[in-house]
């Protein structure tokens, strides 16, 4: 990268040399670059040297949001090569996988170019490093909606569940996909039951199972949801098997159902078991539940 001439720009110091209460100290090179950056924020200059300045500074701190504001203006106004930019973004992301700003930058560029072909492969690599990277999954949701990738993604998500059945981000993503697709819920129930059988103590799959059924009355009208009636599907007997094995997630589901069916005594008995033996850390919650159920009796 060429060294640019900055002699026409006056360095803009942060605090005029006076130490602040935080007693901030900087690397000389970084401070110099930031002094120019501050000057640029004031002058609104858009140029190649400014673009290169953002590159240098991003290598010091990829979460510097100021740089992205400037850099995106440069990309657009100077009509820069966005394929090259994506190479830079990919590299920077691998070094800063949990940085808000680099993921938003990626999102905006892909939104401009519509060139999303490599994105799923990229996400595969990122999720290979941390299969629950929140930024990655959030980005994936946007990507899928933006480019209507639901049909291929419903196949892709199985990889993540197979690899790590406890991966709640993957289950959450699966829910998102199916809300947007026509699907056979009976088939899905079979899939869920199979995953429960593989690991009955997996909280993620139980939350996922319960997420498809509306049992209680309280509603959130702003949620985009699909809900089914548990009475219409073969589920209660299946869950009961795990109640007998003291799986707390199964018991929690049955308690919800028992209350709905006004089998209050049975619900209370299960809550007592939970609070004393099976789920003692939540004993206050289960006792509170019991008090609430008693009010319904």
């Amino acid at each position: 990268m060429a060294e640019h001439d900055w002699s026409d720009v006056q360095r803009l110091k942060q605090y005029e040399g006076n130490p602040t209460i935080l007693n901030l100290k900087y690397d000389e090179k970084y401070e110099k670059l930031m002094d120019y950056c501050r000057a640029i924020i004031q002058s609104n200059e858009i140029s190649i040297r400014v673009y290169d300045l953002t590159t240098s500074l991003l290598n010091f701190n990829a979460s510097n949001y100021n740089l992205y504001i400037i850099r995106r203006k440069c990309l657009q106004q100077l009509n820069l090569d966005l394929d090259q930019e994506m190479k830079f973004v990919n590299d920077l992301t691998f070094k800063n996988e949990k940085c808000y700003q680099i993921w938003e930058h990626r999102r905006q560029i892909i939104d401009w170019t519509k060139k999303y072909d490599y994105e799923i492969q990229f996400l595969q690599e990122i999720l290979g490093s941390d299969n629950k990277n929140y930024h990655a999954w959030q980005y994936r949701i946007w990507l899928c909606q933006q480019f209507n990738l639901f049909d291929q993604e419903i196949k892709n998500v199985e990889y993540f569940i197979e690899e790590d059945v406890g991966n709640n981000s993957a289950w959450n993503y699966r829910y998102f996909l199916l809300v947007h697709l026509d699907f056979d819920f009976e088939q899905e129930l079979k899939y869920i039951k199979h995953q429960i059988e593989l690991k009955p103590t997996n909280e993620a799959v139980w939350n996922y199972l319960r997420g498809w059924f509306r049992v209680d009355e309280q509603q959130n009208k702003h949620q985009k949801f699909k809900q089914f009636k548990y009475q219409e599907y073969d589920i209660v007997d299946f869950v009961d098997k795990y109640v007998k094995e003291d799986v707390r997630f199964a018991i929690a589901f049955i308690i919800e159902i028992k209350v709905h069916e006004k089998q209050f005594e049975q619900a209370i008995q299960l809550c007592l078991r939970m609070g004393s033996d099976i789920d003692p850390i939540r004993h206050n919650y289960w006792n509170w539940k019991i008090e609430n159920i008693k009010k319904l009796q």
Partner: protein
Amino acid sequence: MIFKQYNRTDQEQEQVHSALIHIQLQYNFGEQYQPPEEIQKNKYYQDYEFLDDLSMRINKHIKYANNKLHDVGKSIIGLDTGQPWCIYWPLNVLASHNVQVDNQRIIQFLKYCQNEGFGGGHYQYSHLAPTYASVLSLLILATEESLSVIDLKGLERFFWSVRLPNGSFIMHQNGECDLRGAYIAVIFVKLFNLDEKIIEGTAEFIASCQTYEGGLGSNPFSEAHGGYAFCGFAALKCLEKQHLINIDKLREWLVNRQMEQEGGFNGRTNKVVDSCYSFWCGAIFNLLDDKVDLKDTAALQKYISMCQNPDGGLFDKPGKRADAYHTSYSLSGYYLSKNEIFDPIYNIPKASLEFARAYFNDKKQ
């Protein structure tokens, strides 16, 4: 070549559980307890420094916070665009125990960051996160002088500039949109009596972020997460619109964030414990209107106590280093679990918030 990595959830969880179990046993039985050889290879166990007892060493943490407030030095590099956080995190700790600070120097510093909203440092663009940290810091100081610094008209203009048509907010011009923005805008629009049209539709947007698990995610359909659940629910509570969401489902998700082995909270289903969720998840309990304590407060407090560095500061979990962020949120969570000191929506001392409320209501008239 991407290789499948099987069962990472279980492997990670196993490591953390194992370390915590042996640490707890050692606290319970002292010298009598001999942990197995293999535990020495456990990264969460090996560098853990045992305390003489599990009392909360607030004086050590105050010293630590005082040091952080006055001597960030070169470690600023990762937070150079979030300098106000370096004020807020330690200041909240110091203020919690009425430790005097140099108000003048703090106000002078934050004035530099102000430009309608506040930026991460002098001459930076305004950003909602440093705005939050800066305004809270000025509120904590609770003097006419610190409060009069806040440019209310400027703040209002800044909030308008980052509002999206559906009532959500981006964090800065051309920035990312997620629930943090909505929370920050709501709590200050309400406190400072700014134009309520700024937050029109915001409650409904927040509600649309509730997932099938009952918690809230960053955006619609994103995974339920303690940080965003706090932001969303605190904002709804501030607006008195909690009932837009399914509170029963939120509550059930929330109680399940408490880890049976560790006592602390995780942020998402099947993730590991982290002391900062003592606040993000813990404070939601304070915001629910259930007149009883639904969590195991003793277990939570015990976990937080185990996360103390003998020299001051608190950390995420054994094996991790103390930092200002974890110190601040662990302590907020600790005192909130006793309903002491802090306000659960603003996470500043209640006394400071009361002063601010009185001041800004006076201004309204």
